[in-house]
């Protein structure tokens, strides 16, 4: 999105404040700038009427500070009005007004075809407030910049005007440093239209309810749709495009809205594809669309509260704090604004059975239900929520793969727990129960048409589970860089282990001596790992990204810092660009010391986004 011609000219060079004030004056003189306040009667009735009452503009000082907060003075008022009203598909804007109301600036205009008014558009621009202390409503600080689409109406639909206009707007607001579009999808067609345009439901529990309702509907109509297909939906646009091959009938109700119920007064039925029909008949929902800012790559971030339900006893290194700390740091660093946050889904058992022995998974489930303290080995502590959390972790990788292959993101980071790379076909060890990466690799092959998958494991421990699962498979390259097994758990991953049978040569182990640092890690990576991946030419790169090789992490003896992770991430992205369209799905494995895990993972995520991340925090001291 970046790099087009419109950008260089005016963004980045702040307009002098005097010019902005003069611009305000000229607009006031031309009767195009006013103040506004909420119309309380409208709020009560909700729906019809203007939400704002126009009144005299506020003081210049207040207008200027609002302008500064929203645009950092990067654009002058008249210029901004001009940019907001391009001629698109023969339609223009007339009577464009700027209204200053409280914390926000409104844009209101008529949409004209020639001289004839054919519609109406209202935008609100404001900044969200972020809490500084998560659980206190105050104090706050300025947060994301938001474009709220208060309303767009056109007398005739399906002109393509709104799509074209908002595509322009997306670029414009991207360049102005805005983070999000928001809206309420409430009109009958709007609910489908906005989803199709890539707007997602802002409230995730709400989205899950909608998905449940879709499943109810499917069952009621007896459609040939599996529950898994419904469960895989993670975004409104998936719903909009869901099962276009199935046409279902809908009717209009007394008010003209679509419903699934036939009404005696309106017998004419209309056939729509399933997803569209469902959205047309759904409840209104609050939507948002990310306007990507300042990151060259779009990175999905997969995370769920469900991962915290895998409870381990106090003192166990693999605790839920790892993820909460990471999540909190991502919020603190303002990364949430540029990451595409996604929910994992519970995978179908077939996806897991492709990797794991069904009897083994069953034994795991029984152990959890029995209330055992550990499963298989003593280090694999389990709690009441461990079984669903382990499934959800595998589902997280699958959701990441979906995101990358649907084009919703360029790459993905799956912050999952429990980790997976020690889990073998029928064996749990090293805090791992389900081999998340392996499930992902098999899934990518069966569902996304991928042939050759490369799994790169830079956890400090050897990924023995992943190696065992793929050691006879020539189509999966497993590369692990880890501390030498003579000194470190799990005691496998010697250089001589190169795969078996047909898979001979598709396993590469690069053990490093204890106390190896960034230089040794990067050297070994460049010397052995890069040429191996280069020669393999993968269609997808999966990363088993453990961050326990960090020098502050006491679980092993390697002494790397964020620098090594940044370097390796950058090189992996280069390799992925060359061979597989940049498709990288990174999956969290180990990393047991809060601050070094957070610093390394943040550096890794920033690099995945294509930012020039500089190592921070503990690396310096």
């Amino acid at each position: 999105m970046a790099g087009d011609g419109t950008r260089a000219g005016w963004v980045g060079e702040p307009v002098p404040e005097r010019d902005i004030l003069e611009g305000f004056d000229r607009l006031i003189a031309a009767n195009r700038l006013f103040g506004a306040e909420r119309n309380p009667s409208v709020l009560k009735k909700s729906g019809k009427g203007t939400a704002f009452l126009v009144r005299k503009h506020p003081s210049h000082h207040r207008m200027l500070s609002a302008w500064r907060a929203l645009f950092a003075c990067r654009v002058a008022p008249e210029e901004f009005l001009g940019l907001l009203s391009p001629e698109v598909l023969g339609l223009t804007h007339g009577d464009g007004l700027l209204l200053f109301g409280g914390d926000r600036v409104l844009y209101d205009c008529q949409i004209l075809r020639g001289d004839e008014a054919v519609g109406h558009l209202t935008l609100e621009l404001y900044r969200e407030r972020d809490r500084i202390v998560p659980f206190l409503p105050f104090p706050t600080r300025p947060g994301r910049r938001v474009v709220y689409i208060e309303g767009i109406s056109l007398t005739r639909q399906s002109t393509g005007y709104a799509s074209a206009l908002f595509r322009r707007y997306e670029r414009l607001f991207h360049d102005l440093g805005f983070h999000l579009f928001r809206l309420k999808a409430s009109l009958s067609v709007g609910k489908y239209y906005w989803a199709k345009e890539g707007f997602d439901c802002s409230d995730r529990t709400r989205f899950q309810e909608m998905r449940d309702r879709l499943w109810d509907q499917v069952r009621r109509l007896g459609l040939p749709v599996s529950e898994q297909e419904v469960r895989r939906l993670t975004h409104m646009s998936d719903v909009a495009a869901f099962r276009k091959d199935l046409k279902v009938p809908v009717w209009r109700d007394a008010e003209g809205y679509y419903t699934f119920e036939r009404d005696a007064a309106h017998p004419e039925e209309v056939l729509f594809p399933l997803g569209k029909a469902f959205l047309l008949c759904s409840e209104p929902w609050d939507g948002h669309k990310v306007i990507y800012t300042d990151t060259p790559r779009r990175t999905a971030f997969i995370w769920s509260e469900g991962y915290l339900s895998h409870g381990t006893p106090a003192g166990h290194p693999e605790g839920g704090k790892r993820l909460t700390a990471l999540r909190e740091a991502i919020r603190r660093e303002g990364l949430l604004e540029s990451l595409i946050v996604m929910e994992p889904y519970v995978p179908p058992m077939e996806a897991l059975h492709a990797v794991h022995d069904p009897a083994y998974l069953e034994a795991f489930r029984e152990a959890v239900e029995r209330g055992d303290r550990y499963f298989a080995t003593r280090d694999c502590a389990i709690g009441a929520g461990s079984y669903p959390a382990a499934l959800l972790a595998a589902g997280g990788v699958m959701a990441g793969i979906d995101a990358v292959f649907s084009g919703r993101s360029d790459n993905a980071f799956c912050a999952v727990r429990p980790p997976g790379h020690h889990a073998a076909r029928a064996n749990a060890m090293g805090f791992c129960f389900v081999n998340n990466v392996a499930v992902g690799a098999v899934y990518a092959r069966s569902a996304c048409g991928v042939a050759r998958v490369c799994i790169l494991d830079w956890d400090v421990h050897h990924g023995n589970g992943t190696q065992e699962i793929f050691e006879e498979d020539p189509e999966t390259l497993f590369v692990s860089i880890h501390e030498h097994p003579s000194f470190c758990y799990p005691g496998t991953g010697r250089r001589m282990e190169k795969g078996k049978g047909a898979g001979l040569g598709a396993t590469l182990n690069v053990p490093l001596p204890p106390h190896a640092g960034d230089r040794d890690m990067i050297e070994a990576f460049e010397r052995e790992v890069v040429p191996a991946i280069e020669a393999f030419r993968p269609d997808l790169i999966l990363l088993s990204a453990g961050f326990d090789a960090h020098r502050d992490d006491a679980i092993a003896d390697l002494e790397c810092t964020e620098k090594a992770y940044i370097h390796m991430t950058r090189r992996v992205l280069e390799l992925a660009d060359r061979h597989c369209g940049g498709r990288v799905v990174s999956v969290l494995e180990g990393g047991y010391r809060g601050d070094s895990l957070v610093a390394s993972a943040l550096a890794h995520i920033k690099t995945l986004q294509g930012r020039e991340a500089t190592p921070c925090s503990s690396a310096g001291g």
Partner: protein
Amino acid sequence: MFVGRRMKRDLVTVPPGAALEEAARLLKAHRIHHLPVVDGERLLGIVTDTDLRNETLRAAGAPRTVGEVMTRDVVTLSPGDTIDDAMLILSRQRFGALPVLDGERLVGIVAKADVLVALLETLDLRDYTWSTSVAPVSA
């Protein structure tokens, strides 16, 4: 215990064009069983006393060079590997010695005897002094 610190660095090697007699002479003179075949510092193969024995037992033919009888796909170590790695390969593959490569460069060799020395050390027997001399018992 890294291979890099245990390997023999003063290497006895032969070029591929050497005659078998020359190889046999080197093995005898240095009391060793394995000769890396090199071109400068690049490892081409390895020739062992077993190779030489089999060659002499073969039906007579034109005299051959080391390059013609050597094993070409050699299992090697790197200095960062450990003695455990060496022991595992030596015992599983029933090899006698493993050349050590640093990248492409031949830097040393680890033979069974070197591994035994390392093992003696871990058993704290390296400086064990014999109470009686070890002499062959002749009939």
